[in-house]
């Protein structure tokens, strides 16, 4: 307790904390709570009808499925990219490393129109794929592609610092005890990377669930087929169906809260593992 008291040597706690709480309440908490307040006025049956209509359920399935596939793709390729960027040396490595953040920095609308133009039937990549009988733009495949693009930095950037700080002695010890390189990676390296990897995966998945700008152009937006949940919310708002939009938004918000809490747990698990080593 004595240590805590010594903290009061520093000034500004009341001012900083007061401002933080007021600003947090005004900018984030009050606006978000409106959503739950409005949902409550719908009544249980009205709410259920709004969130379980076939068109809405179809949009959940599409959004969830495409986000999952995109996050798994990033989980696999993001791992390979991180490994190569951290462990190997080749020309252009620094440039590629810096470019990994491009999807973070690029406005989603720009990503959306660019991917759509590339993968449209007459696009640079769309035309050759069309000849092979693969349609990308305006299909669920196109949606998955856009979600893979925007999720790309998450796995790499959560995995990279952990892989960089991994002590090479553990790998050397495994090798000197007769483990093959493959055994060393599977038994020694992968377990140490797992918490960061799953955190990156969850971050990419969470981002994909709510994504709008990069998807809306390439999706085609056909009800029941290629309509993602965020777009459905906008459609309802534009039709002045505020009740319907609110109910669906509340469902997505709860889903993102659950994911956020899961990610926080994963991160503190990773931090504990890191300390334990």
């Amino acid at each position, binding site marked *: 307790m004595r240590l805590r008291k010594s903290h009061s040597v*520093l*000034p*500004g*706690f009341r001012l*900083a*904390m007061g401002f*933080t709480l007021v600003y*947090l309440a005004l*900018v*984030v*908490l009050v*606006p*978000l709570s*409106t*959503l739950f*307040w409005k949902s409550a006025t719908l009544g249980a049956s009205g709410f259920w009808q709004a969130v379980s209509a076939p068109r809405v359920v179809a949009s959940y399935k599409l959004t969830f499925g495409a986000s999952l596939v995109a996050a798994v793709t990033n989980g696999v*390729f993001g791992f390979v990219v991180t490994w*190569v960027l951290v462990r*190997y040396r*080749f020309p252009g490595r620094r440039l*590629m490393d*810096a*470019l990994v953040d*491009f*999807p*973070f920095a*690029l*406005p*989603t*609308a*720009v990503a959306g*129109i*660019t991917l759509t*133009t*590339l993968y449209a039937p007459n696009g640079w990549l769309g035309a050759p794929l069309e000849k092979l009988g693969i349609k990308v733009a305006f299909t669920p495949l196109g949606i998955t592609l856009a979600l893979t*693009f925007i999720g*790309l930095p998450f796995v790499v950037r959560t995995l990279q610092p952990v892989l960089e700080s991994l002590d*090479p002695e553990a*790998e*050397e010890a495994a*090798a*000197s005890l007769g483990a093959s*390189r493959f055994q*060393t990676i599977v038994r020694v390296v992968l377990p140490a990377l797992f918490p960061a990897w799953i955190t990156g995966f969850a971050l990419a998945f969470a981002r994909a669930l*709510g*994504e*709008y*700008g990069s998807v809306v152009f390439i999706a085609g937006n056909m009800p029941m087929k290629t309509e993602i949940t*965020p*777009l459905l*919310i*906008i459609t309802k*708002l534009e039709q002045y169906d*505020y009740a319907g*939009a609110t109910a669906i*938004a509340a469902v*997505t*918000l709860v889903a993102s*809260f659950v994911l*956020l809490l899961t990610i926080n747990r994963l991160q503190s698990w990773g931090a504990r593992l890191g300390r334990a080593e």
Partner: protein
Amino acid sequence: MSTPATREPRIVRLLLTATALSFLTLFLVVPLVAVFAQALEKGWAAYADALLEPMALSALRLTLLTAAIAVPLNVVFGVAAAWAIAKFDFPGKDALVTLIDLPFAVSPVVSGMVFILLFGRQGVLGPWAEALGLKLVFSVPGLVLATLFVTFPFVARELIPLMQAAGTEDEEAARVLGASGWQTFRRVTLPNIKWGLLYGVILCNARAMGEFGAVSVVSGHIRGKTNTLPLHVEILYNEYNFQAAFAVASLLAFLALVTLVAKSLVEWRAASEHASHAEDPHVD
């Protein structure tokens, strides 16, 4: 350097590198090249026309205005939040940190929508706003509010871990030696966090200028009035004016590249400063 027993066989290394480079080229390099190629498809004159057109200029002005309001406010908040969280102990700290992260978890569409539910005509505070003659949605204030919301965590998130790692001893020493609170912050805390702060500002600004989903919902798409650059891109694209859409988009892609370069510079400066500190026996 690592010994051969802790490296993969050459063929595996080549295959992995080729896979990673192909993936990055397909997802990052090709789209980046495509933006500028499409923008210049009809030559430089058409490119300049698309950027100098009055609607594009008014969209640019609004984007700059929105960022000029949202970024400083979130910087002040980020510094205050990081100071309170990193330098003091209080119950509920973890919960507060989670709440600060909240806007990252919310879909941009929902982020914009809550302001319509709050201030729209049927909104909770709608009648009150109307009575005061305030038009807070489908207007510039609505755009600013939505931008504030989506860029809320950036600066705080960069600063909290940095200030926590720095501890409180330096500041305590400054106080004991008679520095005022403001002097302590400016002379002791700020030099420790300046690169992280700069990086937070850069990220916050990139998102503020590039936000699409949230501002799309609150803007009402009034051309020349409530269109930011990303919304202008959408309008041009939906009008099949692809070249002009990509010309404006190339400005935003350029901003993204500037952000990446700035990030690399900040990381490089922070690393070299860290290294020079480590070499100096008096510090650390």
